[in-house]
């Protein structure tokens, strides 16, 4: 019962109250900011499944986001597919790429996995930038049609908002169900101790690949939403720094927590906008907020698991080895 109430409050807030308030303050601007936050919430929630729940630090999420965006943009501009086809296809294509690219890296652990995903993300970015014949390279793809359906609704702020909000809710639902289930427990077992999980009969590599595929699917959908709502994409939108931004959102919000992921996106995208009046100094303040949130809230705002323990596992590799650093050989 209580669950039902909280869910209906959430739905009411996202689908009625928030757009109502935004229209009341008269804002295409705030709609736009909210849409961007929505897209990054989906991204952060999906990255959270890999990093927070399964415990694999991914530094290449922006690359997969880019694959989704380019798939959507190319399908929508070259083949004129409507959004209800491009978005799922973008998700599936990204998931397939995710699996293919991640397969060879699945036996890596800890920081080696993190750096391999960094490499994959950069490979995707460089390909988008330099494969001029296919992706138009740095020219980017412009005039991507907005989210509209003939006779029902046309592309506008409200449509964009609802498209992003509904998909974000769906993503939260799916990822939430995945996390809070026996399946999610299995993923957490992999996070806590993969060898132990394997000895209990879990298919560790299979679970890792599945969580990667789910996360890439939603990253692809987020990319598609970005392409449709912005109308123009170029490789610069999918750089390594975006991956770091996603990671920072996860950490500020709290690893392993879905509301935390959304909150992280709200803070790290909303804060620079709210701070516009202080002008050139706003990024310094954003950095300071990040610093103090780590200092005082090591679990993130709503973290399920302490960021420290996950990061420790990621980077604990060299520390614990008996063979030690180069100078001791």
């Amino acid at each position: 019962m209580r669950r039902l109430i909280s869910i209906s409050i959430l739905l009411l807030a996202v689908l009625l109250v928030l757009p109502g308030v935004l229209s009341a303050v008269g804002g295409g601007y705030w709609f736009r900011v909210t849409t961007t936050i929505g897209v990054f919430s989906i991204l952060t929630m999906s990255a959270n499944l890999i990093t927070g729940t399964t415990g694999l630090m991914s530094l290449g999420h922006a690359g997969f986001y880019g694959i989704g965006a380019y798939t959507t943009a190319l399908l929508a501009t070259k083949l004129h597919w409507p959004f209800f086809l491009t978005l799922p296809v973008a998700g599936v294509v990204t998931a397939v790429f995710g699996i293919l690219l991640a397969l060879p890296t699945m036996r890596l652990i800890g920081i080696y996995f993190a750096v391999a995903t960094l490499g994959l993300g950069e490979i995707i970015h460089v390909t988008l930038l330099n494969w001029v014949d296919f992706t138009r390279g740095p020219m980017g793809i412009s005039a991507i049609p907005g989210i509209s359906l003939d006779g029902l609704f046309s592309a506008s702020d409200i449509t964009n908002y609802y498209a992003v909000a509904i998909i974000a809710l769906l993503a939260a639902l799916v990822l939430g169900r995945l996390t809070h289930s026996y399946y999610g427990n299995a993923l957490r077992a992999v996070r806590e101790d993969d060898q132990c999980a394997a000895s209990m009969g879990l298919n560790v590599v299979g679970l890792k690949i599945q969580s990667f595929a789910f996360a890439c699917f939603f990253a692809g959908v987020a990319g598609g939403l970005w392409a449709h709502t912005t109308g123009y994409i170029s490789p610069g939108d999918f750089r390594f720094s975006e991956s770091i931004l996603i990671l920072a959102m996860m950490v500020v919000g709290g690893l392993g927590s879905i509301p935390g992921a959304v909150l992280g996106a709200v803070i790290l995208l909303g804060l620079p906008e709210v701070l516009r009046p202080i002008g050139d100094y706003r990024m310094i303040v954003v950095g300071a907020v990040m610093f103090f949130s780590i200092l005082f809230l090591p679990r993130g705002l709503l973290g399920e698991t302490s960021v420290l323990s996950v990061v420790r596992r990621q980077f604990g590799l060299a520390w614990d080895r008996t063979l030690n650093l180069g100078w001791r050989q």
Partner: protein
Amino acid sequence: MFDVFFVQQLVNGLSIGLIYALMAIGFTLIFGVLNVVNFAHGEVYMIGAFAGLLAITQLAPPLFAVILVALAFGALAGFGLERIAFRPFRRFRDEASLKSKAIREATLLSSLAVSIIVRELAEKIFGSNMQSIPQEYLLLKPIEIGPLSFANGQFLIFGLSIVMLGGLQWLLKHTRVGLSIRAVANNPMGAAYVGINTERTIIATFVIGSTLGAIAGLIVGLYQGAIFPAMGFAPGVKAFVAMVMGGLSSIGGAVVCALILGMAEAITTSFFAQGWGDLVAYLFLVITLVFFPTGLFGGGRERV
């Protein structure tokens, strides 16, 4: 295809690789002791370059003195960095939290935050454009050896990396500070039990590592003719990749992998296009990790 230009291309690749290597040395040293990626190393590199540049424009001393200034500022930056971004996260000194080591690793993100702040501040103070460097300090004097062209900076960077690597090995193996750094890196609790001041050792590591980073920043800035606030980011990522590719456990390994990355970029430019150079470098990384899951020079696979 395999003519004198190809040999020149190898020279170019070697010099790109050495730049990454210079940065990777300090990076790997700090990683070894605290076991955390110091995202702010790129900013220390930048601070070194700017400190040197300020010395050049204000006092115009000989290059050797400029290096000393960068060295001093690097040491200071390392000390400050440890204080601000790393010390606060080691608040518990009891055995349990030291053994869990959990507290230390939040520094990955605190160092990222500090690096954002420092970079933005530098952009506020100096502007984000490239700084003008007095021509006589640029390390771009052409030196022709047969048909190959070199720059004096390339020799300096080559010499510097040998000195740094050799000096560091000597420091770690034959001095008291070095011995205690190795002890703390191996087992901080054990080191503390036998009376090593772990706090002071960690500070020493940061100071040494940052000094190396700052000198690298100055020399590379003068060699490329490019000193600007965001200069540390790109080589920082490459140094990080080289360190992991080398297996985390070996400074020498990181240097070798940095050279491989640089070579990959130059040779790709020769055969395809410069744009694809990064792709080949990262492809090398992924392939290396597929076949050597703990890096080229890492030991056997250990449990986390």
